[in-house]
């Protein structure tokens, strides 16, 4: 009997203490993470995020995405999930206070700062889920055979990191202001702040980068090396900020006694500062020079390939797209006559990159003979616009001539551009500013606009109504007369054997 009572107590209990409490932290984090994922605001936010993303991504970029735009498009919507996480995690931190179980928990081995750590870890599954969604959104576009360009991993990290940041804010708020109203009021303030902070665009370059998701004013697509966004610094800043807020929450819940938490907090603040300084240095000198070079002398960075009588010069990232340009050029050429179908052309990609993504700038028409401008986006309205630009150069020899042209040649230009398209009248609507198919209108293009009068439209529609081969024969047979400068619309109609137009024939 004495042998049993004097047996030494098992040392296992004391040696396994710290590890056991970390196991408890992870168990608590797993439980809180599951609960957080099932909170109604988080579920609703996820549902809206997914539906919104699928709906927006489905027809985006006219089916021809540039990946340096796609990565930025993943940043905004996760903020919605982040706000829901802030609300949910704040309520979770207050739960033990709400049900008055703090006193029961305080007898356990899991100290308050460890419980805070568990709440912080509970945000990680949501952030991982957002990371999966962001990755899927990017992969969806990147796997399209028409995709060009390069995405930036740092831009893709912004979504998940902002969810982590909002979650950490929720935990910190729960420790600092343990009242249920605090989180909703903070969210209202944040939303209002974002409205007022986004007011003057481009003002104060460095402060613009302090918010999680930084948008741009321009929807232009630039080569990825000209974008000049400090994406990696910004990701570092966000990671540092999320870590700082998380460690501050630990400090405020009794972790201040631990030197590791204090050292970690100092390191996280330093990381944030490094990121903040790095992201506020503006556009690097070499990027600014590269932007000027790409705008003024694009031929220095472009490579050209010749196909038949056409040379296609594209920025390196767009080289896979020359085949699609060539298909349009060949269609337009096949409808031209009088030697114009063999006129040597240069299709050159041109951009206005000097302002970066700060604002959209109009691109001047190319002054060089036989040069057609093509932009960085493709598909949708861009394709018929390019066909019109090709037809202008085939008819007049220069892209610059489009702005000043206001005579019967416009009928030939528009017919040559559109007749080879699958649905010419729909494409006519797409290239016209007011989406009309009758009356006068402005025809858009990447550079100069064209002016169509009501008479031009009338003759063009009559020509498009003819069987294509018959119309092609009439156009090719009278090419010289149809493309003579200053030919009147009435004369064009007469030559083509169509009725004289009744609409007005004056350009504004």
């Amino acid at each position: 009997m004495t042998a049993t009572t004097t047996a030494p107590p098992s040392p296992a209990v004391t040696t396994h203490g710290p590890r056991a409490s970390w196991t408890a932290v992870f168990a608590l984090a797993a439980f809180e993470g599951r609960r957080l994922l099932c909170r109604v605001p988080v579920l609703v936010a996820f549902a809206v995020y997914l539906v919104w993303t699928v709906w927006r991504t489905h027809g985006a970029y006219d089916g021809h995405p540039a990946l340096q735009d796609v990565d930025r498009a993943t940043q905004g919507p996760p903020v919605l999930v982040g706000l829901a996480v802030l609300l949910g995690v704040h309520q979770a931190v207050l739960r033990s206070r709400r049900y008055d179980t703090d006193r029961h928990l305080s007898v356990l081995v899991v100290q308050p700062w460890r419980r805070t750590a568990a709440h912080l870890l509970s945000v990680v599954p949501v952030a991982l889920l957002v990371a999966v969604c962001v990755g899927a959104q990017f992969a969806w576009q990147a796997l399209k055979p028409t995709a060009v360009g390069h995405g930036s991993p740092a831009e893709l990290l912004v979504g998940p990191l902002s969810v982590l940041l909002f979650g950490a804010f929720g935990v910190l708020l729960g420790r600092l202001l343990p009242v249920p109203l605090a989180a909703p009021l903070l969210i209202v303030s944040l939303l209002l702040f974002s409205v007022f902070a986004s007011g003057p665009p481009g003002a104060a370059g460095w402060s613009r980068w302090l918010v999680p998701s930084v948008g741009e004013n321009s929807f232009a697509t630039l080569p990825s090396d000209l974008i000049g966004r400090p994406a990696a610094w910004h990701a570092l800043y966000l990671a540092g900020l999320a870590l700082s807020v998380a460690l501050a929450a630990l400090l405020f819940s009794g972790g201040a006694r631990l030197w590791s938490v204090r050292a970690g907090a100092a390191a996280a603040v330093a990381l944030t500062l490094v990121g903040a300084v790095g992201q506020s240095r503006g556009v690097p000198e070499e990027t600014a020079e590269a932007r000027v070079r790409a705008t003024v002398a694009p031929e220095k960075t472009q490579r050209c390939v010749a196909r038949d009588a056409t040379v296609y010069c594209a920025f390196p990232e767009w080289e896979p797209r020359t085949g699609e340009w060539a298909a349009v050029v060949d269609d337009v050429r096949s409808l031209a006559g009088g030697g114009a179908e063999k006129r040597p052309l240069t299709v050159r990609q041109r951009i206005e990159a000097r302002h970066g993504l700060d604002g959209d700038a109009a691109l001047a028409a190319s002054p060089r003979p036989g040069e057609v401008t093509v932009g960085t986006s493709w598909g949708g309205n861009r394709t018929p616009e390019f066909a019109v630009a090709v037809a202008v150069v085939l008819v007049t020899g220069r892209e610059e001539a489009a702005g000043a042209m206001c005579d019967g040649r416009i009928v030939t230009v528009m017919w040559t551009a559109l007749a080879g398209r699958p649905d010419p009248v729909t494409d006519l609507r797409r290239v016209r500013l007011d989406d009309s198919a009758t009356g006068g209108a402005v025809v858009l293009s990447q550079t100069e606009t064209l002016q169509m009068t009501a008479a031009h439209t009338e003759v063009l529609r009559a020509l498009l109504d003819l069987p294509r081969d018959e119309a092609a024969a009439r156009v090719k047979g009278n090419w010289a007369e149809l493309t003579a400068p200053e030919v009147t619309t009435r004369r064009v109609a007469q030559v083509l054997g169509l009725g004289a137009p009744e609409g007005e024939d004056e350009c504004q």
Partner: protein
Amino acid sequence: MPVTGATAGGVPVAELVRAVARTVPWRALAAGGGLGLLIAAVPRLTGGDAGGWPALTALRAGALAFALGAAFWLDDPARHTTAVVPARRALRHGLRLALLAPVAALWWTAALLLVPRPLRPPAAGVTVEAATALALALTGAAFAVHRREAARPGQAVAGFLLVTAVLAPLLCPEDWALFVTPEDESWAVAHDRWTVLLGALLLAGALCLTEPARRYGRRGLRSPSGTSGPSRG
């Protein structure tokens, strides 16, 4: 017990008012209202160079902050103990709402006056919007009390109100636009819609003020202390 003042069905209203005024969550309302006033004052504080739209947004956000505070207005930790008193729930909630009404009116007047006159949106329209937000908060709370016998529905209702307020401008269909600017020609039509919403919410809120004829949910008696379940043995 000597009863002084007005009575309603034998219930001493005047004394009840004093008791209710002590128990309602003034601090939550003060927090929401205070932040709301601060938000409404933002256009004035930023020098008034903001346009009409930021001022309107600030006013809407201020009204939302006040409504979030008011979402806690029906919180009553002692609800389960007062379920048996002769004063009906409609009377108890009515007293709470009667206490809230003058405060809300005063607060909204102050918020409107804080917006500089040239930026101020038409008062009638934006008041209907603010009243709808407040009605949504109170109806939500009344519904939670009616349906779930919740003692403190404020936190859940505030979350619901916030989610609705964030998502409504994002998801509102274009042919039923609600969040328009005064320059927009559909301002009047949009505020007819707001009025319809307000009416529907007030009706729903009035229906939720009563005590349910029968308890929903699980059959049998339930008590928060868990001691009055059916005996098992």
